[in-house]
């Protein structure tokens, strides 16, 4: 009797668990299964590009996930585009002008339609920009926009609360991608991004993070060459490399540095390395050990950037001469802050009063050893490697470096709280917008968090002047002067330009690198055989 009862209980529970598993796996309406496997028949009929995206695809909000929607899916477009020199060129706006210091007028391109067939006119553009400002409040802070209105069928007027000479440059931010009102339902809930780009959203599965876009046959510009693009979030670099190797994806970004040579040697894979608008840079604690300019210069001279770029980053990056790369129109090419001269560095430290009085290999002064914490974070894989290399290189100079990694948000808190630190190594974007002063303001302006205590009245005044100079050539000139001052003062040391390694299946051709993209942006005439 007891045995029968036990058997009955066990089989009942086992059955229930199995049934639950099967029911939940097969019956969820919220989780339609999306195959990342290309269908053989469909493949014969259409050209499909499979992309292994390096971040998880958490959503496709065109404002807060604008980089994905605009640059990686080509669904939205912005008023002002940029060329390879980071100079503005017409996008959805054909021209723009400022009528006074606080007002910009944009002429909107005619004959453009959204993916839902509605016309893109001034009313639609004004609504889209106002929506972006409401969804992402940081866009208000960075632009000082106070109002946006349609002042003609194809004319939009934007007023700012403070003069902003670079408002058109900020209109290049992907969060300002122009969308139709149909992106939201009648209750204001986000549905799918409806843009004007060469591709439109076909499906997005929030659960699997797979985004599929198909070509927009009514696109006003160059017709897309690929019918469908499937973008899958693959956060593990090794998985991306293996998926590329197995032929599951055709293109990916940021495969592991140490895998690039091996992958490139394979017949069916091609690796291309480029430098992006991001820099591996070091903020120095100018309120403590690095208060003396000679010490800052010595630290910079002791860094062997060539070795770091070639051996630590496996060529995924290049030596930084300053904060900008020489393809940027406003780069001060006369600056060369990449010198490596250990003897000169030692001399400067001696002039600053630091010597190894006790022979322990580390410099000291008034009983204090030159010892500090170098803080960095792990989200960008090159950072911990560079930190270790710098630890060894600065030891040659007599600096004792303790490397600490922490979450990037904890670093800001750590520094603000007044805890000990000497260097903060980060991978900072230099051109979120193609602006000649955006990065300078954020890294050097006294009141900014990212200046980490550095303060210089002359620098502040030059930055203010640059932001309000409406003549582009003159603005670039002021930017070059700020760059020279910044590199002379050296509160921030630039180690390497940030490199990316793109992996392609051999069947992908005609890829054109876009240096203004944040990870990658493929071109509409890319080919797949």
């Amino acid at each position, binding site marked *: 009797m007891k045995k029968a009862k*036990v058997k009955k*209980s066990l089989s009942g*529970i086992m059955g229930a668990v*199995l049934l*639950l*598993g*099967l029911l*939940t*796996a097969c*019956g*969820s309406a919220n*989780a339609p*299964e*999306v*195959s*990342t*496997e290309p269908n053989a028949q469909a493949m014969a009929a259409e050209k499909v590009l499979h992309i292994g995206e390096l971040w998880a695809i*958490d*959503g496709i*909000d065109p404002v*807060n996930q604008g*980089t994905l929607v605009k640059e990686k899916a080509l669904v939205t477009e912005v008023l002002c585009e940029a060329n390879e020199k980071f100079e503005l060129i017409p996008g959805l706006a054909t021209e723009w002008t400022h009528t006074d210091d606080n007002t910009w007028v944009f002429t909107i391109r005619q004959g453009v339609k959204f993916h839902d067939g509605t016309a893109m006119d001034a009313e639609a553009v004004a609504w889209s920009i106002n929506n972006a400002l409401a969804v*992402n*409040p*940081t866009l208000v*802070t960075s632009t000082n926009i106070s109002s946006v209105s349609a002042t003609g069928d194809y004319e939009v007027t934007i007023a700012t609360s403070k003069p902003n000479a670079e408002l058109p440059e900020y209109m290049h931010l992907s969060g300002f991608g122009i969308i139709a009102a149909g992106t939201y339902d009648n209750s204001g809930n*986000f549905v799918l991004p409806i843009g004007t780009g060469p591709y439109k959203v076909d499906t997005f599965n*929030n*659960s699997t*993070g797979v985004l599929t876009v198909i070509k927009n046959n009514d696109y006003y510009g160059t017709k897309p060459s690929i019918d469908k693009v499937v973008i*899958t*979030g*693959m956060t*593990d670099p*090794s*998985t991306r490399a*293996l*998926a590329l*190797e*197995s032929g*599951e994806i055709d293109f990916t970004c940021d495969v592991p540095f140490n895998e690039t040579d091996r992958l490139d040697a394979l017949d069916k894979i091609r690796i291309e390395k480029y430098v992006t608008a991001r820099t591996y840079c070091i903020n120095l604690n100018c309120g403590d050990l690095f208060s003396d300019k000679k010490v800052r210069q010595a630290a910079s001279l002791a860094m062997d950037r060539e070795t770091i770029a070639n051996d630590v980053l496996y060529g995924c990056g290049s030596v930084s001469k300053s904060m900008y790369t020489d393809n940027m129109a406003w780069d001060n090419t006369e600056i060369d802050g990449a010198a490596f001269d250990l003897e000169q560095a030692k001399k400067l430290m001696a002039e600053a009063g630091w010597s190894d009085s006790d022979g322990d290999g580390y410099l000291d002064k008034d009983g204090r050893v030159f010892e500090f914490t170098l803080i960095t974070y792990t*989200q960008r894989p090159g950072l911990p490697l560079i930190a270790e290399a710098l630890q060894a290189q600065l030891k040659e100079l007599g600096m004792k470096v303790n490397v600490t990694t*922490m*979450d*990037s*948000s*904890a670093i*800001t*808190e750590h520094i603000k709280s007044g805890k000990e630190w000497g260097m903060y190594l*980060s991978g*900072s*974007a230099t051109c*979120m917008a193609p602006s000649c002063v*955006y*990065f300078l303001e954020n*890294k050097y302006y006294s009141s*900014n*968090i*990212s200046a980490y205590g550095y303060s210089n009245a002359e620098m502040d005044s030059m930055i203010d002047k640059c932001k309000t100079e409406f003549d582009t050539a003159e603005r670039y000139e002021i930017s070059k002067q700020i760059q020279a001052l910044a590199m002379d003062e050296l509160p921030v040391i630039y180690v390497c330009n940030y490199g990316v390694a793109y992996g392609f299946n051999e069947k992908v051709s005609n890829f054109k690198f876009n240096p203004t993209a*944040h990870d990658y942006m493929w071109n509409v005439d890319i080919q797949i055989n």
Partner: protein
Amino acid sequence: MLKFAVKRVVACFFVLIAVSFLSFIVLSLAPGDTAVTILTHTFIGFDDIIHDADVQTVSQLYNLDSPLILQYWAWLKGALLGNWGTSYVHNVPVWSLILSKIPYTLFLGLIAFFAAFIISVPMGLYAAAHRNGAFDHISRFVTIFFGSIPNFWLALVLIIVFCIKLNWLPVTGIGSPLNFILPGITLMVGMIPTTFRITRSSMSEVMGQDYIATAKSKGLTPPQIVSKHALVNVAPSVITMAGLEIGHILGGSVIVETIFVWPGIGKLLYDSIISKDYPMMQGCIVTISLGYIIAMFLVDVITASIDPRIRLGGSRN
């Protein structure tokens, strides 16, 4: 029995409240400015430039300036009424996203669990019944060997062998039954050693009991002894262990889900912790806890039905 079950359900409810409270407090105390984290994960790039004004805006937007206890109370009130909030990062209702991940996590986990159960329980029973025999030594060595392999390494090796070299299986995706094989094996290999060792040690203990000696002296054959006397006494330990494993399944596996791009709840929880997406974190933790609690509740009910000493509050000895 009903009284026993009702008592357990009430206790489970309070455990769930306690877990949600503790997780909220512990996660709130983690280093890092919450407003900065939300700002960098939701509105700007995670290592892009931060403005003070934006930090303040985010603090106000997400009510981060109010005391922790009030933030928790606001969450709890909503949760009890079925509103688990909206994810800061995904901008969708927390519950809908968790619900969409559960089937993938549960299905993969249960496949791995049943495969591990079918292999390791008979192995454990046989090894204990033939203690110190060749099978016992070999099976112990094999399970220790596989148990020592880190799952990320095993996953990569499996991919290299079966996806790259042999080209038999896909690396990522969920569209085909073939997609289950590698993540399933990776999870299963991690489960086998525990199940095997607990089964073996329970069986060994039972086989040393006086009633087994009595059964032997009555002249029963080994199969009769095992089926009539040993199995019933081994069952509570194995069921408890199985319950723990099943409870663990709902927690997913960050490593396996990341490597195989499997849309499970483990990676969702991990990402929400990194981005301080509090509503999502709370939702995941409560769901995972609920899985454990349900599994443990079922274990209690089953073992109580098998062994009356448990439901009567008595001792086994």
